């Protein structure tokens, strides 16, 4: 078969790229190694983790706040198997949705491992070893990433696990040791902490979610502490050992003292690494960098003309929505259109509770740039809506240019922060000032009023409700 475009990998980057190509009239194929479409995000990432986060959140609410709400329950207990089954159902519905979208857009789905023979020919080896071949004018590599580990840690997938296994546990851990204080560790750690596990976080840096604004890490640390998180920040893991029922993590603190933590599960969540195995990049000379990422230029084209890379397999934040934008970008670029991606305005989100969401520059980045900025913050404690729902942890922090009042960064930790950040993205795409948002009507009572209040504070330190 000959295609205009072939996409390798059907995660959110790949399938969006394929649909946009098809919309633009290109004959498109998509190659997927696994039996279901959707990649990490739909199968073992964003969607299943959110399913478990929502289930565990309900349980935790029932346990900790229902009584105060005036709801009394007897015999409240967790049915972990049902939670995992429900999650599996959510995943199944979602991946079926992607299959439907492929059909609707007349995209050929080819199951198997795609491997370059040359720049226009790809061999596909299916799970039974049967080989087929397709020819394609352009190829988009969207093979994503997989969990990273450290050389001295052996992932046995039973006691020492990655995020993939953490979504399928048969029991609630008694003590889960989480290596890495980033997004994945905090989300999955939250799931089991809410269900009753003790959670210990070992992080090399001095704060949680260290790539985000410092205030976010600090606030999150406080909130998760209430859930029963222990922290070993500034600790360097030196060894992980496991028996049939236990794990021991050895770490060294800043003073060089050795700490030993014993638990029954160890979640290794130190990040993800680009996945290019079996692609046969060496056959066509596509270059990768020192971290194994496929090198692309500003048009997202690799060192070989007509071959593009998107999402986790190239540089930049490993986020589904970043990959989606890049998928659209390439499809439209192939057709001669000139789309843009503003990488500074791709929001980052952590689905803990409170949620964390941010867009633009962090305060640390502005300091480093030496840029004159002003800051406005508003705590959810002062929000009527938050008080009503008993979600009073967190704050909104707005950073604006000292002279022009242009919003440079918005950092939210609080209820529904992930949904609220969209307002900040829209505003910043239009280069709004803090006062612009402060002068727009926000429905009352909503969590979004906190953003307006923080903007009022940033404009002229004139919040109404503090």
């Amino acid at each position, binding site marked *: 078969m000959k295609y205009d475009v072939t996409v390798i990998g059907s995660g959110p980057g790949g399938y969006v790229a394929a649909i946009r190509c098809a919309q*633009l*009239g290109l004959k498109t194929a998509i190659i997927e190694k696994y039996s279901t479409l959707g990649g990490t995000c739909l199968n073992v990432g964003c969607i299943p983790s959110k399913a478990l986060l929502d289930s565990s959140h309900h349980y935790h609410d029932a346990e900790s706040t229902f009584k105060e709400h005036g709801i009394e329950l007897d015999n409240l207990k967790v049915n972990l198997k049902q939670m995992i089954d429900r999650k599996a159902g959510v995943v199944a519905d979602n991946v079926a949705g992607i299959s439907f979208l492929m059909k609707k857009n007349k995209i050929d789905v080819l199951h198997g491992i795609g491997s370059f023979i040359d720049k226009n020919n790809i061999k596909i080896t299916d799970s039974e070893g049967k080989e087929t071949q397709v020819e394609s004018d352009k190829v988009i590599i969207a093979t994503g990433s997989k969990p990273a580990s450290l050389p001295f840690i052996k992932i046995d997938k039973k006691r020492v696990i990655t995020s993939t296994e953490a979504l399928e546990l048969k029991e609630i851990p008694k003590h889960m040791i989480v290596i890495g204080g980033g997004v994945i560790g905090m989300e999955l750690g939250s799931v089991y902490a809410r269900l009753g596990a003790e959670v210990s976080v070992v992080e090399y840096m001095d704060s949680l979610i260290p790539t985000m604004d410092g205030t976010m890490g600090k606030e999150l640390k406080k909130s998760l502490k209430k859930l029963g998180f222990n922290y070993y920040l500034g600790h360097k893991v030196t060894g992980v050992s496991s028996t049939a029922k236990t794990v021991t993590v050895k770490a060294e603190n800043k003073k060089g003292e050795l700490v030993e933590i014993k638990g029954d599960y160890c979640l290794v969540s130190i990040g993800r690494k680009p996945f290019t195995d079996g692609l046969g990049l060496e056959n066509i000379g596509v270059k990768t960098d020192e971290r194994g990422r496929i090198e692309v230029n500003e048009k997202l084209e690799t060192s070989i003309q007509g071959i593009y890379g998107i999402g986790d397999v190239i540089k930049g934040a490993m986020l589904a929505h970043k990959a989606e934008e890049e998928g659209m970008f390439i499809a439209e670029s192939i*057709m*001669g*259109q*000139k*789309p*843009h991606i*503003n990488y500074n305005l791709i929001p980052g989100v952590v689905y803990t509770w409170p949620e964390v969401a941010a867009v633009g520059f962090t305060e640390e980045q502005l300091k480093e740039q030496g840029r004159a900025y002003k800051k406005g913050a508003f705590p959810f404690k002062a929000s009527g809506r938050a008080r009503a729902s008993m979600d009073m942890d967190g704050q909104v922090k707005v950073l604006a*240019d000292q002279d*022009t009042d*242009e919003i440079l960064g918005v950092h939210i930790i609080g209820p529904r922060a992930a949904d609220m950040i969209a307002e900040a993205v829209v505003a910043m*795409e*239009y*280069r*709004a*000032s803090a006062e*612009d948002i402060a002068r727009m009507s926000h429905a009352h009572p909503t969590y979004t009023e906190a953003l307006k209040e923080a903007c009022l504070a940033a404009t002229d330190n004139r919040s109404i409700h503090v």
Partner: protein
Amino acid sequence: MSLEIKVPTVGESITEVTIAQWFKKEGDAVDLDEIICELESDKATFELNAEAAGVLHIKAQEGDTLEIGATICEIDTDQAISNTEKPTPMTESKKPSTTGEIKEMIVPTVGESITEVTISSWLKADGDFVELDEIIAEIDSDKATFELPAEANGILRIVAQEDETIEIGASICKIEVMEVAPSAPETPAPAVAEATNTIAAVESTYATGHASPAAAKILAEKGIDPSQVKGSGVDGRISKEDAEKAQKAAPKAAAPSKQEATTAPIIPGSRNDRREKMSSLRKTVAKRLVSVKNETAMLTTFNEVNMKPIMDLRKKYKEKFKEKYEVGLGFMSFFTKAVSMAAQEWPSVNARIDGNEIVYNDFVDVSIAVSAPKGLVVPVIRNAESMTFEQVEREVVRLATKARNNKLTIEEMTGGTFTLTNGGIFGSMLSTPIINAPQSAILGMHNIVERPMAVNGEVQILPIMYLALSYDHRIVDGRESVSFLVRVKELLEDPTRLLLGI
């Protein structure tokens, strides 16, 4: 609706002003904020701006003295003005004073034989502020492209539009002479015609001219710099509608537009055709080639050359030559030297007809045909007969580079007594070139192909180039043309002869 423009209050003690000069005529279309006349008071001279866009009806004539508050003119705002020639409203309140002088720029004399030129592209838009000596337009003649520098500081008023062909001495544009640059340059306003009366007062902020995501994409696709677009959004932000309405202020010459055409989405099965105006260069080439075909007795003789000796020689000395002269040793020097030597032995090949006389040259000026972005050009290597290989190579590189950048001067393309053309670079194996009039012969070079050749009764595979000599039989006889070509062949097949002249 008609808007009366009255003499404004210009100073406390000033009670009357005199109309010094009208810049616009009765019935002219004027734009909002356009300077329409100059007023003199006893203290200073100042300009009067149109307070609306419309058609001007003058009430007070030049030299009239009016009291403050008296009517100077009326502007009929009902009459729409064509927006193609619409200059921009100026947004800043302070403006540098014009001196009142209007500099008319005319087509300069560019070469003896050139009688008309075509405006290839305006690099500045009507209403732009231009600086003295700044390049404001590109002009095509049938021989070369020129850049037109501004002859004064001031506001550009375009007279001859793009693609218009005008005679030498005709008016190209006018410059309303100013002493200093305006604080913010006028931006051509491609956007919304009706919006002119609402956006005049917008102050510029950090966000002025910021294009929304959709607008940015549209502008990028149109190849328009957002700074050239007037935004109608809050604080001058560029909305999607602004971007959709935006038109390219100064479309560039043929090259970029062609590029756009190729990157545009190709819809399978479409059957569009495209019409493009012929450039002056193309028209001249067309006219000349046909007249040569009609007015000469042209025919072509062929021969083949074994290129192995030259290739061997090049292989052997390529590095050393490059090291010493910092220019590559190509084939052009061998051919140029060979034809120069042969042309001196067969002078009619190097001659031309002038009326009833034949003009023989004791020098050989070799024209080389170069494919330039705008078409075929033929710069000349002068006195090729007395040049060294290195000098020839250097001159070829210099002229070809200039040709590709459209920088050749008329001087560099005038004259020439014999032409070399190489269709081989595009893959031609054999062709019949057309003489470059008024010369009497042209040598066509071709690509080098491997051919089985009989050498001393044995078949050898040798690199062969076919040569074609087209000549004007009116002054070159068969004996001369064929002998010339055989001589060229001898010199190329045994380049040592070039050295010894035998």
